[in-house]
């Protein structure tokens, strides 16, 4: 099954996306944020909390009197002077000591002092990536669409029970839904948590607990079960760092979600998403973007071009962070009103269009949610049509829809029914998409064409005005966000010419020009 698509339009869209991303990249190159610095600290081995439960990376970075130089410099200097480890230095800061003035230490000396710690951090990243590769080779996953389900009890131990049961029921990817609006917290909570709201906090310890349980399960089932969580928010880089250390396999990581749906400052988000994606690239973590959010808040038929436009923008930023296509889980969702006549044809058109435009990307396909109701019997059918669309159009990461979507966060039994639904439909219609052709010039092709044309129109407008202004004007998701407004703006700063970040240097090396 192939759509005849306007390749010129696709090329045009990519050129426009590049024109949109590049100016932002220049800004990014000049800037850093507190969360980038905290991620640097974490990668150098800083972890834990002070007596008030404030994470040491926050204490350390907040203690910098010249943050524009970067935390690396301060740490290097302190190590050179005191011979302490970064962790000891952070503890000392937490205990009230102040950091030595970096200017006292010569450049070469402080770099040399930090280097082993930075290298150790990178080594841990590479080690966990290596471990994943080894397990995947030994315990291969079943073919995509990869069946992905969420756990969201709020209690990491209940989540663990649910995750293991889901894996036994056929799940290939487990997402621990984050306690709501964690994206708005300017630090990463610490330790194992048992109280969450609509989800469970993303903490390094929670990551560890879940990864351990799933590794054990993977061995038992003879297939590697993936783990995912959420990065987007005020702590994108730190979560990218901890996720890399604990070998998560995917992360929700969108270049604009925080801005549009969480009112996080745009400059903050752009800088954070870049560094976090550099880390994702190095650690082999597949990002999942959040285009589905456009569809839950507005009409899904109208928003299709916006989704595609956003995918192009996410791709452009991802490439500029050195992320290979194979790690770009660009998002879409099956959100058209189930009672719209021929809505299924539109869904097929859109899913296949994305598949052909991003041939090497592990597309992430989200299930119907907004139009799900308490009628679980009908909801189960809508999920079945979604499952059919996914297997026909060869989506890669398949979020299983729950028949109880409108009622409660999934019950253990709901997940089993959702997985059974996906397995049944995808098996009985396994090769269906490959055994049919789309009628040339028919309704499906016309829809695909309109969506692509619409996306180009949007990108055109954005490229003209510049992304920041476009967002200020409410081009995306009908929300207007001021350039210097929103959460976390105060955490953004311009780098001093003497700024140093050992990681972005190392990681930048990989970056491939788009």
């Amino acid at each position, binding site marked *: 099954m192939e759509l005849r698509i306007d390749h010129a339009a696709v090329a045009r869209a990519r050129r426009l996306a590049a024109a949109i991303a590049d100016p932002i990249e220049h800004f990014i190159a000049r800037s850093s944020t507190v969360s980038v610095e905290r991620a640097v600290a974490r990668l150098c081995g800083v972890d834990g909390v002070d007596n008030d439960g404030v994470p040491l990376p926050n204490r350390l970075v907040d203690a910098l009197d010249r943050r524009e130089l970067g935390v690396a410099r301060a740490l290097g200097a302190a190590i050179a002077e005191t011979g302490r480890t970064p962790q000891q230095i952070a503890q000392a800061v937490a205990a009230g000591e102040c950091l030595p003035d970096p200017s006292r230490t010569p450049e070469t000396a402080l770099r040399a002092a930090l280097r082993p710690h930075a290298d150790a951090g990178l080594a841990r990243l590479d080690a966990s990536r290596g471990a994943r590769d080894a397990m995947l080779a030994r315990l291969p996953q079943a073919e995509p669409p990869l069946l992905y389900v969420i756990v969201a009890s709020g209690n990491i131990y209940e989540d663990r029970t649910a995750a293991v049961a889901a894996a*036994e*029921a056929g799940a290939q990817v487990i997402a621990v839904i984050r306690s709501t609006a964690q994206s708005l917290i300017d630090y990463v909570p610490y330790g194992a948590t048992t109280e969450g709201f609509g989800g469970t906090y993303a903490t390094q310890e929670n990551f560890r607990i879940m990864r351990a349980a799933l590794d054990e399960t993977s061995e038992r089932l003879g297939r590697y079960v993936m783990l995912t969580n959420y990065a987007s928010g005020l702590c994108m880089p730190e979560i990218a760092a901890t996720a890399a250390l604990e070998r998560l396999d995917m992360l929700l990581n969108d270049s604009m979600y925080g801005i549009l749906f969480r009112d996080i400052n745009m400059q903050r988000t752009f800088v954070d998403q870049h560094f976090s994606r550099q880390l994702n690239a190095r650690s082999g973590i597949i990002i999942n973007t959040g285009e589905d959010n456009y569809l839950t808040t507005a009409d899904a038929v109208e928003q299709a071009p916006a989704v595609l436009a956003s995918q192009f923008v996410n791709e452009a930023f991802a490439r500029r962070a050195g992320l290979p296509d194979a790690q770009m889980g660009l998002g879409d969702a099956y959100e058209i009103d189930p009672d719209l006549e021929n809505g299924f044809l539109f869904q097929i058109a859109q899913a296949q269009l994305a598949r052909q435009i991003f041939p090497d990307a592990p597309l992430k396909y989200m299930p119907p949610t907004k139009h799900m109701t308490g009628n679980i019997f009908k909801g189960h059918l809508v999920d079945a049509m979604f499952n059919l669309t996914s297997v026909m159009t060869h989506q890669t990461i398949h979020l299983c829809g729950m028949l109880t979507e409108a009622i*409660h966060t999934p019950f253990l*039994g709901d997940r*089993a029914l959702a997985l059974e639904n996906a397995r049944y439909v995808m098996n009985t219609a396994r090769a269906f998409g490959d055994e049919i052709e789309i009628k040339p010039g028919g309704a499906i092709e016309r829809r695909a064409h309109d969506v692509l044309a619409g996306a180009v129109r949007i990108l055109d407008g954005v490229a003209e005005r510049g992304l920041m202004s476009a967002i200020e004007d409410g081009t995306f998701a009908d929300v207007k966000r001021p350039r210097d407004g929103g959460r976390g703006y105060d955490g953004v700063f311009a780098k001093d010419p003497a700024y140093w970040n050992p990681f972005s240097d190392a990681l930048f090396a990989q970056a491939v020009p788009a």
Partner: protein
Amino acid sequence: MSLVKPYGDTLDDGAVQLSFTLPVAWSEAADEAARQLVGKMGFTDVAVVEGRAIAASFSFFVVYARTPVAIDVSQVHAPSATRDALSMEQVDELIHKRVGRKLKIVGACIGTDAHTVGIDAILNMKGYKGDYGLERYRGFEVFNLGSQIAIEDLVRFARDRDVDAILASQVVTQKGSDIANFTALAELLEAEHLRERVVLVAGGPRVTNLLAAELGFDAGFGRGTVPSDVATFIARRVVERAAA
């Protein structure tokens, strides 16, 4: 007195379908446990039509059974807040004639709830299911505070602007957060002696008019509400009050 029972294919057969998960590995004994469990719930003719392992230590069951329980529907009272809704024009007309000024309405997703789609469907111009939102009514002045509004802030806003009606939305119902928030809102309004000055309306997918009444609200609107239902209720209630 009119007793009704669930209806399968014959009047009063009491047929009910159930499904649930038990935290036990599947076996014939698990099927039997499910059968006895449903029997203990008070059902008869229990048939475990499906029982299977959904995980190493969890089993899922589908059961059909009969209940002896009946309910006297003539004794069930659940007045709907959406009776013979008026058109937008009629509502504006009513307000114009009987109140003679725009009614001030404030709406918000209270507590930590960020599900604005529902209340926006009621308030925003474009409305819902082809039915225009309250912002479009000449008779209303609408303030939509949006998502995650603290109850204190909502009440302060209501006092400062001296609004005629407060519309609160709760979509998240986990751990009874909806009930808690609605209750807190009604109580704070009482404490502030504002309660009788406003028409207090609750909404959300799990809200019923009855529930809202129990929580001290004037009305509650649930699944599938359209703006004109709400507009009609508010206008009529304000007019009644004025009359009283």
